[in-house]
């Protein structure tokens, strides 16, 4: 077998004559098959394949091993359609549970010309892969800019107190609606999954004043509670005292009645006796009473007729007297 010597540069190659006699046909053949083989592609479970034939969309295929005619006849894009993408407005996640505020994005004017610091997360996914691929440029930037514009528009419609407290949910919903309408206007094929307001707070330089309002509210409640406490202490005591007064009076009444009844009972039984022998009983009662009274009493008994002349008694008391003659 004869070899042909071929010199390329300063290298010398020995190539069998037979191979050369085949010409370039096998090279072309192998090349053709390799070219055909570039048409195999894989569509992941979270993707769809959008195949373009000569630039025009010819079909959209689901996940699996797929084939398209090789470039330049057909090309394929495999956008992730189930993946939910996330954009942060007003802050960036810089590490695990670490965030950095972006004040340029988060500081905004409210409807009553105050300023708030608002942070938001926007989640979105593709609802129309064709529109997403071919209708507009720079999808991430587009969503970001539209989100910022939406949030500021909506915050601009509401007052600061609403934005800081009760209106959060409403602002979230309105922002979502507006953002979706903007993205639909761009025919972007993007669906807003969720808009979440993270943190809406007063700007740093005035936050102390806002916190003081909260503590003032607490103070108000505390003052009222203390007063209520005082009331709860005083009123039952007063009621107790009132009940005591009434019970005492009732006791007095009962006692007064019973005493009267007792006195009457005694009187009645005495009267019964008295009626049996009037003068005797009277006398007896009188004497008994005197027996009771007189033993402890200093007494003077003066003779008849002199009962009215008290001057005679002055000595008897043993006291100083200027009346004696």
């Amino acid at each position, binding site marked *: 077998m004869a070899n042909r010597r071929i010199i390329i540069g300063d290298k010398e190659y020995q190539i069998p004559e037979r191979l050369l006699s085949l010409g370039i046909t096998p090279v072309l053949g192998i090349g053709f098959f390799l070219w055909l083989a570039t048409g195999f592609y894989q569509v992941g479970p979270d993707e769809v394949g959008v195949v373009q034939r000569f*630039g025009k969309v010819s079909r959209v295929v689901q996940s699996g091993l797929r084939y398209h005619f090789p470039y330049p006849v057909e090309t394929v894009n495999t956008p992730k359609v189930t993946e939910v993408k996330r954009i942060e407005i007003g802050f960036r996640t810089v590490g695990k549970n670490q965030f950095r505020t972006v004040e340029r994005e988060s500081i905004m004017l409210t409807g009553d010309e105050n300023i708030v610091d608002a942070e938001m997360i926007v989640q979105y996914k593709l609802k129309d892969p064709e529109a997403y691929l071919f209708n507009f440029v720079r999808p991430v930037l587009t969503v970001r800019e539209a989100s910022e*514009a939406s949030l500021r528009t909506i915050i601009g*419609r509401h007052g600061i107190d609403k934005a800081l407290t009760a209106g959060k949910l409403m602002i979230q919903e309105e922002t979502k609606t507006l953002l979706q309408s903007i993205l639909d206007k761009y025919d972007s094929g993007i669906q807003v999954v969720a808009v979440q307001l993270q943190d809406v707070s007063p700007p740093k330089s005035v936050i102390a004043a806002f916190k003081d309002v909260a503590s003032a509210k607490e103070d108000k409640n505390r003052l009222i509670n203390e007063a209520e406490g005082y*009331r709860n202490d005083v009123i039952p005591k007063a009621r107790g005292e009132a009940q005591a007064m009434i019970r005492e009076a009732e006791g007095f009444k009962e006692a007064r009645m019973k005493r009267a009844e007792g006195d009457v009972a005694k009187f009645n039984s005495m009267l019964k006796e008295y009626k049996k022998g009037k003068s005797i009983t009277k006398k007896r009662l009188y*004497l008994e009473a005197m027996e009771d009274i007189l033993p402890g*009493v200093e007494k003077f008994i003066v003779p008849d007729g002199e009962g009215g002349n008290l001057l005679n008694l002055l000595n008897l008391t043993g006291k100083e007297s200027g009346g004696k003659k």
Partner: protein
Amino acid sequence: MKKLGIALILLGSIIFFSTVFIVDMTEQVVILQFGKPVKTIKEPGLHFKLPIPIQTATVFDNRLLEYDVPPEEILSKDKKSLIVDNYVRWKIVDPLLFLQTVQAIPTAITRLDDIVYSELRRELGTHNMSDIITENREIIMKQVTHNSKVATSPYGIEVVDVRIKRVDLPKENEKSIYARMEAERKRQANKFRSEGEEEAQKIRATTEKDKTIILANAYKESQQIRGEGEAIALEIYAKAFGADPDFYEFVRTLETYKKIIDEKTTLVLPSDSDLFKLIGNR
């Protein structure tokens, strides 16, 4: 002879490939014949033209394009200065017109910037600051978009959306807003505290009042009860003693003596009194 054949094939394929071209989904093409536009293709797919150098294809983007306008200081109707940051979404709708008037995207953006900026400035100049910030922002944007659309249509451009991303106040105005916010909150805090004291005072005063009333009512009731007791007692006495008033007087007088006469009392008794008449008559 063989070499000539190869050369012909080569030439043929060059000519063939310059007649065939692909228009992508994102593209639109203007065909020029010796520099003169003859055809606009917006339909994606495989297309043919006469070979170079007779016809050439110029490709333009078919997609919605982006332009972020740098922030500008704009005066509102009430002469307040605002820093407005907006963006524009636009597309080439008439590539031929586009090619004839602005040729390429960088020139187009310069033109777009001029138009949008002046429209924005004009429109914002007819509104007060509070309107721009609050309710009317969207109406203003719609108006600016509309006006810009009209103004850019001679360039084969359609302005789809002009949108304000941010409206901020210059730094010094921001400071005065902060000062106002702080003052407002202080006022609120003071109000809450005063209200608290007011409420508390009210409650305490009401408490004192209620206490006084409760005790007074109790006094009233207890006096009534006492009175009733006295009345009943009187009635009982009167009924019983009425049976023999003389005897009652006698008994009651004796009882009274027992109570009022004690060891400090000095009694002077005449010897002819009932009790001592025996002594005197001796």
